[in-house]
C-alpha cells in the first residue's frame, strides 16, 4: 500500500513531464515516451505482483490522461500484462537486471511489445487510433534505447527506495 502511494506521485510527475515538455518538442521521427520508460523499467526491477498492479495503475492513468482519446481501460489492460511479463523476465535474471544494458534492452523490448499489443487490441475491438503503428514505433523505440541508460540510475534508486518502504511495511 505504502509502495503504491510512493509510486503514484512519481507516475503523475512522469506523465506531467511527458505532456508539458517531452511531447511538445519536435523530436525527429517521434517523441520519446518518458512515462512508459519509467513504468516499464521500474516494473522490470519489481516482483511480478506489484509490477502488474503498477502497470494497471499507470495504464489507467494513461487512459485518463486528458490528452488521450482512446477507450478507458485499454492501456490498463496492456500495461498490466506487459509489466507482469517484464517483471517475470527480471526475476529470472536476478541481480544482473540492474546492469544498464540489460535494463535498456528489456525496456526497449517491453516498449515494442506494449505498442504491438496496444495496436493489436485496437484492431481487434476496431477502436480508432489517431497515429499509425509504423509512424510511431521506430522513433519511440530509438529514443527509448538512447534515453533509458540515462534514466536508469534514477529509476534503480527509486525502485530500491520503494522496496525499502515495502520491506518496512512487511
Amino acid at each position, binding site marked *: 500500500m505504502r509502495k503504491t502511494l510512493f509510486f503514484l506521485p512519481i507516475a503523475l510527475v512522469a506523465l506531467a513531464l511527458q505532456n508539458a515538455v517531452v511531447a511538445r518538442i519536435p523530436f525527429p521521427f517521434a*517523441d520519446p515516451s518518458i512515462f512508459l520508460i519509467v513504468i516499464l523499467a521500474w516494473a522490470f526491477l519489481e516482483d511480478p505482483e506489484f509490477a502488474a498492479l503498477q502497470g494497471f495503475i499507470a495504464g489507467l492513468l494513461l487512459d485518463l490522461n*486528458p*490528452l488521450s*482519446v482512446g*477507450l*478507458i481501460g485499454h492501456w490498463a*489492460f496492456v500495461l498490466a500484462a506487459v509489466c507482469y511479463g517484464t517483471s517475470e523476465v527480471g526475476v529470472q535474471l536476478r541481480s544482473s537486471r540492474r546492469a544498464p544494458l540489460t535494463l535498456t534492452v528489456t525496456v526497449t523490448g517491453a516498449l515494442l511489445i506494449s505498442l504491438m499489443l496496444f495496436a493489436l487490441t485496437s484492431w481487434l475491438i476496431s477502436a480508432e487510433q*489517431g497515429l*499509425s503503428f509504423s509512424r510511431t514505433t521506430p522513433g519511440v523505440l530509438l529514443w527509448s534505447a538512447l534515453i533509458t541508460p540515462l534514466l536508469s540510475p534514477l529509476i534503480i534508486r527509486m525502485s530500491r527506495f520503494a522496496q525499502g518502504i515495502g520491506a518496512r511495511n512487511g
Partner: protein
Amino acid sequence: MATPDKSRSRFFLIALLVTSLIIVTLDLRGSVPGQTFRGITNTVLAPFQSFFRFFYDPINNFISEASNLGRSADKINELEERNAKLEEELSRFKVATRELEQLKDVLDLAAAGRYKSVPARVIAAGSAAGFSRTIELDVGARDGVATDMTVISGAGLVGRVISASESTSIALLLDDETFKAGIRMEASGILGVISGTGNSQLSLTLFDSSSELNAGDRMVARGSSNSRPFVPGVPVGTITSVDQNSGTLTKTALVKPFVNLNSLEVVAVVTGKVRVNPRDSLLPPAPKPTPTPTVTVYITPTPEPSPTKSKKAN
C-alpha cells in the same frame, strides 16, 4: 511447478486484466463518464504541468541548437562566454517575438474572417506512444470555449476542440487519423472531405470523379451549420499529388496543410458564429508562376543560288 506465491501473483494479474476488460466494455457501452474522469486527472496534473512548462523553452532551445555544437564548438564556447548574458536575453526575446508573431498572425486571420475568437497558448501535447494527435490549450469553459469549436493558427486550420474543462481544453489536430472536415476548393467551389492519415499529409476525397484537380490547388473549410465544429473559409492546405486512378466513383488527392502542426505555440479558438462566409478571401496570395524565359532569334536568310531564289520570288 508453480509455487503458491507465483500462482497468487498470476491470479492477481488475471483479476487486473479482467477488471480492465470490464472497464473497456463499460466505456464501449458509454457507461463510463470518461470526460469527467479525464477532467479530474487534468486537475491533478495541472500544477505539475504548469511547473514543468518553465523547462520547455530552455530544453527546446537546447535540443534545437545541439546540432550546431559539434561543428564549431570552440567558437561557440568563446562567444557564449563573452555573450552569455546577452544571449539569454536574446533567447527570451526570441521566444517572446515568436509568440507575438504567431499571435499577430492568428489575430489577423480571425479579424479578416470576422471570427469571434479567443487566443490560446499550447500548454501540452499528446505523445506519439499514446497514438493520438492532440494538444492542450490554456483556455476553457470560462473563456467561452466548448466542444466542437474550430481551432485556427495564423496559417489556417489546426483542428477542433474535443473537450473543455473550466480553464483548459483539448483539441484534436487535423492530421489525426480520426479527423474529418468538409472543404471547398478555391475558385471552383467543388466540395470534398479531408481526413487525417496519421502522417504529415492529409487525404482529400471529392465525390465527383469528373472534377478537375491539380497539384497546387488550394482549399478552405466548408463550414458546418451554426459554425460548429468548423467555421467557413479557414485555409486548410494545398494539393501535393492527385491520385490518377480513374476507375473509381470518387477522386482522391494528398494535401499538405498550411499549418506546421509540430511547432504550434499560439493558436485561437473560434467561439462565435460566423455571419458572413469569407469564401476564398483568407487564402494567402497565390504563388505567381515564374515566367519561362523565351529567346527569340532572328535569322536573315542568306541569298541562295539562282533556281530556288527565282522560285521564292514567285
